[in-house]
């Protein structure tokens, strides 16, 4: 190719003007790389055009560059944060995932803690129930022992059974005395008596009939709270009868006959 003819064609002037097609532009570009004189020609044309166009400029504002830099946020502190913002979505994704994981773990921990507390509470309840049951067993054993003792006592051949009948206006009341003369003790079964009014107590009397001599066997202070209403009382007297009266708290020296609830005579021993 005749390079001088190529240069003289005027294509390079049009190249600088931007008046060529895309393909022509590529062709000139390749020619510039291939032939230094083509490249130099282009540079000279460009320099001349830059000078000519600059000559028509009467730019007065020297701060124009600064204004552009300000608009492009050069040298501004957020010029660099802008760059960071490209990676921000990644950062956010990680953060959100992290927070989500933390929340899930936190919720899991809370749930486990809650479960643990519930189990501990259940265990406590079970322990309390256990203790309560043990106590009941002990109670039952004690009751059983009491009952056996009572049964043994009642089965004793020397036992004298004395039924006490209701007296006067207390006719519907009753009681029973089991008396073991050998060990000087009686069991009073007072189930047939109503609850003692407040401030009053039942008092048990041993009686001699001829002449009528009452001897106090004591008051039953725990009558209202006792479960089986059976009371063990010591009795060393040669009793001929037993009676129960209602007396003021602390008991009386002699029985108040108006308040005599029950009375029973000891049967004569068999001949």
């Amino acid at each position, binding site marked *: 190719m005749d390079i001088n003819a190529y240069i003289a064609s005027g294509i390079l002037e049009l190249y600088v003007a931007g008046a060529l097609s895309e393909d022509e532009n590529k062709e000139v570009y390749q020619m510039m790389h291939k032939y230094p004189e083509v490249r130099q020609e282009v540079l000279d044309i460009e320099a001349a055009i830059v000078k000519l166009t600059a000559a028509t400029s009467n730019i007065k504002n020297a701060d124009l*560059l600064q204004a552009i830099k300000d608009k492009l946020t050069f040298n501004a502190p957020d010029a660099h944060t802008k760059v960071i913002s490209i990676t921000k979505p990644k950062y956010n994704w990680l953060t959100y995932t992290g927070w989500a994981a933390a929340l899930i773990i936190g919720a899991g921990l809370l749930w486990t803690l809650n479960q643990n507390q519930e189990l501990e509470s259940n265990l406590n309840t079970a322990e309390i129930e256990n203790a309560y049951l043990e106590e009941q067993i002990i109670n039952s054993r004690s009751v059983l022992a009491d009952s056996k003792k009572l049964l043994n006592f009642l089965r004793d051949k020397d036992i004298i059974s004395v039924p006490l009948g209701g007296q006067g206006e207390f006719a519907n009341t009753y009681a029973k005395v089991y008396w073991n003369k050998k060990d000087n003790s009686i069991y009073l079964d007072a189930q047939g008596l109503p609850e003692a009014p407040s401030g009053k107590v039942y008092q048990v009397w041993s009686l001699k009939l001829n002449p009528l001599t009452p001897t106090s066997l004591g008051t039953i202070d725990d009558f209202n709270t006792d479960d089986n209403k059976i009371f063990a009382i010591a009795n060393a007297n040669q009793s001929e009868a037993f009676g129960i009266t209602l007396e003021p708290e602390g008991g009386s020296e002699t029985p108040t006959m108006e308040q005599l609830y029950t009375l029973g005579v000891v049967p004569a021993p068999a001949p």
Partner: protein
Amino acid sequence: MQLEILISKFQQKDEKAFEKLYRMYSESMHGVIYNIVRDHALAEEVMQDVFIKAWNNANSYSAEKGRFFTWILNIARNAAIDKTRSKTFKNSRKNLDAEYFVDILQHSDSLDDQTDAIGIKKFVSQLAKKCIEVIELLYFQGFTQKEASETLDIPIGTIKTRNRNCIKELRTIVLN
């Protein structure tokens, strides 16, 4: 080769490279823009837009497609012409048609010291009208060879050679 490095740095958002390119071409771009809009404030506004646009679209430039100067010249011409098509511009200015870049040169007393003002004025006074017309259309207005040939009603081949001769003349004056 230095220009290629500068442009590559500019494309990598190097602020110093931007400044350097601005100093190289801003006056030239302003001349082209001013020639189209013929208003100082407007020309400055458009030029700001041009360099911001160049910065933001730096990666769309490729040396294979043409000179960097031509690329930014194209942005400048288009931005200025867009401005003249806006409604507010049309309302404020009506009569620009007959003016060429030479008017600015002939009527201006304050040409920048950096440019060879005397040389340019000499050139303009020596230039034939046919040169003024073809330079105006091809460089200042961004006409294609075909558009220029249609506007001036001369064959395409003639545009090419005439332009070549006019630029040759220009070079002898401004580049020694």
